[in-house]
C-alpha cells in the first residue's frame, strides 16, 4: 500500500452534486453527515473510496457521496463490495445497506462476507422496516409489528444483528444511533481502520413507516438510562448519573447500581472489545431494553486474517517460485509435440 497522502478534507469535499432525496426528518441524513465527517479523519485520498450499496432508501447513499460509487441490486452489496476489495485491496470499500437489503434478500452474502473477513465496512441502517417499498416488516421487525404485509402483527422472530454477526464468525461489530453524530463518527472511523469485515448497526429512524421505533431506548430523555456506550478498556457504566454498571452473575450479565450491594467502579466489568472469544461481547450485543441497557459503541473488534490480504499473499508466494510467468509459458507447458 502506498503512503496516504496528507490531505485535509472537510465533510463538504465528500458531498456530491446530487439533491438528497430522503424524506425530511429521515435518520439517513444524519448518517450521511457522520460518514462524511469520519472520512475526513482517515487520511485516505478521496479517489480511494468506493461506496457500494444495494437497494432501499438507505442504499441511495452512494449518490450523495463525491467518491466512487456503485448502487447495485437488492441484497447484493456485500458481494459486489467483496469483488471490489478483492480486485483492488488498496481501496477503502464501504457497503451501505438496510435491514431488508442485508438481512432479508442479502442474508447469504452478508454472512459469507463476514465469514471470509474481507476488509469492507458494512453500515447497516436498521429501521426495522422496508422503507423504499413503503412499509413492510423486515427480518429485524419485532414480533407483533403491524405493517402492510402483517396487518394482524408479524409472527416471526427477528434477527439480532450482533448475534448473527458473531454466529457468522464476525470480528467487528458496533452499534450506534443515527442522530448521535459524535458517537457515529467515532465508530465509522474505527470501523474503517479495522482490518477485516466491520459491521456497524445504525438504529435508524424511518419517520414515515416506522416512526419512533427506537425511541424507547434512544429518546432524548431516556437514552442515558437505556443505552450504554461501550469503550474498550473502560468499565461498563451508564446512566444519567453514571450510577449503573454491568457485572457478571454466573453466566449472565446483570445491571447493578454503583454504591449498592457492594458494587463500585472497581468491580464493574471492563469492556474488552479485543477478546477473541465472543462470550461476553455476544451477551452485550444481545442486551435488550427493559432488562438491560442497549449497548452502543464498538462491541467487538478482533484482529484476524483478512481475506483479500491472504489472497494477495498466496499469489505472491506462488508467483515467486513459479515456472510459468506469462501466457506463452503456460501455452507451452505440459506435454506438447511438434509436427513438422
Amino acid at each position, binding site marked *: 500500500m502506498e503512503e496516504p497522502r496528507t490531505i485535509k478534507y472537510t465533510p463538504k469535499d465528500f458531498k*456530491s452534486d*446530487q439533491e438528497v432525496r430522503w424524506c425530511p426528518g429521515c435518520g439517513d441524513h444524519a448518517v450521511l453527515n457522520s460518514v462524511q465527517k469520519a472520512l475526513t479523519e482517515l487520511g485516505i*485520498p*478521496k*479517489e*480511494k473510496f*468506493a461506496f*457500494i450499496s444495494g*437497494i432501499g432508501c438507505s442504499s441511495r447513499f*452512494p*449518490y450523495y*457521496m*463525491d*467518491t*466512487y*460509487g*456503485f*448502487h*447495485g*441490486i437488492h441484497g*447484493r452489496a456485500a*458481494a*459486489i*463490495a*467483496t*469483488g*471490489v*476489495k*478483492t*480486485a*483492488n485491496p*488498496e*481501496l477503502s470499500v464501504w457497503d451501505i445497506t438496510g435491514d431488508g437489503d442485508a438481512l432479508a434478500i442479502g442474508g*447469504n*452474502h452478508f454472512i*459469507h462476507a463476514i465469514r471470509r473477513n474481507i476488509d469492507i465496512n458494512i453500515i447497516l441502517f436498521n429501521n426495522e422496516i422496508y422503507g423504499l417499498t413503503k412499509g413492510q416488516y423486515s427480518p429485524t421487525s419485532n414480533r407483533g409489528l403491524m405493517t402492510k404485509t402483517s396487518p394482524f402483527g408479524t409472527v416471526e422472530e427477528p434477527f439480532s444483528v450482533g448475534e448473527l454477526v458473531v454466529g457468522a464468525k464476525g470480528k467487528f461489530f458496533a452499534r450506534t444511533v443515527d442522530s448521535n453524530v459524535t458517537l457515529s463518527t467515532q465508530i465509522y472511523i474505527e470501523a474503517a481502520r479495522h482490518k477485516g469485515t466491520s459491521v456497524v448497526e445504525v438504529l435508524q429512524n424511518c419517520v414515515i413507516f416506522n416512526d419512533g421505533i427506537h425511541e424507547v431506548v434512544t429518546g432524548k430523555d431516556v437514552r442515558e438510562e437505556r443505552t450504554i456506550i461501550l469503550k474498550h478498556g473502560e468499565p461498563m457504566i451508564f446512566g444519567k448519573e453514571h450510577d449503573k454498571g454491568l457485572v457478571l452473575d454466573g453466566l449472565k450479565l446483570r445491571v447493578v447500581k454503583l454504591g449498592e450491594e457492594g458494587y463500585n467502579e472497581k468491580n464493574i466489568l471492563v469492556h474488552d472489545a479485543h477478546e477473541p472469544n465472543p462470550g461476553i461481547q455476544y451477551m452485550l450485543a444481545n442486551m435488550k431494553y427493559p432488562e438491560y441497557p442497549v449497548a452502543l459503541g464498538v462491541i467487538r473488534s478482533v484482529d484476524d486474517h483478512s481475506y483479500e490480504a491472504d*489472497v494477495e499473499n*498466496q*499469489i505472491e508466494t*506462488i*508467483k515467486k517460485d*513459479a*515456472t*510459468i*510467468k*506469462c*501466457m*506463452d509459458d*503456460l*501455452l*507451452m507447458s*505440459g*506435454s*506438447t*509435440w*511438434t*509436427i*513438422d
Partner: protein
Amino acid sequence: MAKNSKVIEREEVVIRFSGDSGDGMQLTGTLFSDTAALFGNDLSTFPDYPAEIRAPQGTVGGVSGFQVHLGHSEVHTPGDYSDVLVAMNPAALKANAKWVKPGGTIIYDSNNFSDKNIEKAGYKNDPIAEENLSGYNIIAAPISQMVRDALKDFGLDPKSVLRTKNMFALGMVYWLFSRKLIYTEQYFDKKFAKKPEIAEANKVALRAGYYYAETIEALSPVIKIEPAPIARGLYRNICGNTATAWGLLAAAEKAGLNLFIGSYPITPATGILEELAARKDLGVKSFQAEDEIAGICTALGASFAGNLAVTSTSGPGLALKSEAIGLAVMAELPIVVVNVQRGGPSTGLPTKTEQADLMQALYGRNGECPVVVIAASTPHDCFTYAFEAARIALEHMTPVILLTDGYLANGTEPWKIPSMKDLPEIKPPFADPKEIPFMPYKRDSENLARYWAIPGTPGLEHRIGGLEKTIKGTVSYIPENHELMVQMRAGKVAKVAARIPDMKVYGENSGDLLLIGWGGTRGYLMTAVSELQAEGHKVSLAHFNYINPMPLNVAEVFGRFKNRVVAELNLGQFADYLRMKYSDFSYRQINKVQGLPFTIREIKESCIKILEEK
C-alpha cells in the same frame, strides 16, 4: 514394433474404452489419445460418465466411457460408431454394443463376465449371444487373471493389482494399432515418481497386454493410421474448459489487466474455475462464491474496480445470474459470463450436453436488456471465443455471454499452440483523467461504448447503478431520456457487428441447401456436409459463432441457397431466432434433445430427405 505381418491402413478409426466408473477408463482414453497425438494423428475425444460419483458397480447406470476418433486426415468429431470397443464388464457391453460398427472389434474382460455381473447388467443369457454379435471380431481376454499373474511378485494388495487392468487393455489396443508404449510409460514414471512400485506395476500390465495381443493373433490384422497432414507447429491436447480458461487469461494479458473470476462450482463448468484457481502463478484472483449470484456480483465489483472480470456457470446458474446480468447491462461494465450448457430444464441431465440455453442467454432478463452472445464450436476454439468474448466486453463496455456446452467442455482435441504476439491487441476505452467532470454515460461516438473510469483515479469519482440515468449519471425518470438510453444500449450491442468477421460458408457459396448450425455441433455438421458434398449434393454449411449481433452478411448468404435447415440440440431455438432476425427466409429444422451430440448419419439423412423433396 509389431511383428504381425498383416497390416492394413485406415483413414480413420474410432475406439471406445468402456467400463465401470472405478475402472479408470478416462485415464486410459487420455493416454491413448496422447500417444496418437504425438504420433501425428488428428483426433477428437469425448468422455461420457454418469452423474453419480460412483453409480452402483456393474450396472449400466455406472458405466464410464471414453471415445477417441483418430485419423490420417482431419477429424472433426469423436465419431458416431466405434471400430473397437473395450468393455471391462458386461454393463459396458450392454451400454455400447449398439454403437459398434458392424464387424467391429470388441475386446472384453472375460473374467468379469460372471453370472452375477451379467445379471447386474440386465442380461438374461450370454451377452454376446444376446447382443447378436456373430459377425463381429470378439476377443474374450481373461484380463483380471492375467494382471494377477503378471503382478504376482509385486507384493501389491489385490485391489491395487486389479486397478492395472485398464493398462492391460490399453496394451492390447496399442498393439492393435501398432503404437509405442513409451509415452505412457513416461507418464507413469512421472506420475508415480514417489511410488515407483505402482509405476512399475502399471508398466508391466501395459506390456503384458501388448504381448498378449501379439500372441493371440486374434486381433490381427494390425491397423495403421498414418499421421495426418496437419499444419506444422507445436501442438498440445486441450479440452474446452481449459481452452476457455486460457482464452480469458490471454485476453487479460493482452489488455494489461488482472483476471478475476467469481464462480460457484457446477457441472460441467467447474473445470474453468478449477483451472483458473490453479493459475495463481499468473496472478488470477479466483473467488469461489457462496452462490452463482455472488459469483457474478463479485465479478461485477471486480469489473468496477478495473479487472477483467469473469463468471462461469451452467444453465441453472445462468438463470440465477439473470438479475445481475441486467445490472451489468445498466452499469455498462465489461464482464464475461461463460455458460457451459448441459441438459435441461431445471437440474435436468447435468452431465449431458445440450444447446437449450440460447433463448435464456439472449432474453432471460427483465426489461430491454441486450447483451452480446457468442458461442464456441470446438474444444480448442473455446480459446478463440473466450478471448473474443473478453475483447468485445472490454472494448465495447458490455457484458458478453459465451456459450459452450458439456460436449466441448470435456472433449479434447489437438491444438496448434498460438503465440501471444499473434493475438490482437485489446484496448479498453479508459476514461481520460483530464476530462473532468467525468460523465459516466458519455459514449464513444463510433461504437457507443461508455468510458471506463477506474476507482483510485483522482478526479474521476462517479456513481453508477441499476436505476436509469442521464449521461451525467444522475438518476432520471424522464421518459425521453429512458427511451434514448434503451436505444443507446441496444445500439452499442448492435455496433459490435462492425468488429466481427463476415460469415464464411463451408462449401460452395450457393446451392440447394444451406445447413445452418451454431456452437458445439460444428464438427458433426462439417463432417456431414463434407460427406454430402462428396456424394454430389449441393449442400453447404453456415455455422455461427457470433449470435448477437450476427455477422453483417448473413441475409445475403442465406439468400444464395434454395433451402435452409437449422440443426441444433434443442427444439429449435436458433431457428426461431433466425425467424425473428431474418424473417424474409423460411427455415426447416433438425432437432435432437437427448443429451447427446448429433450423429453424422442423422444429419445426412435429414438433409437428403429435404433435398429429395424438391
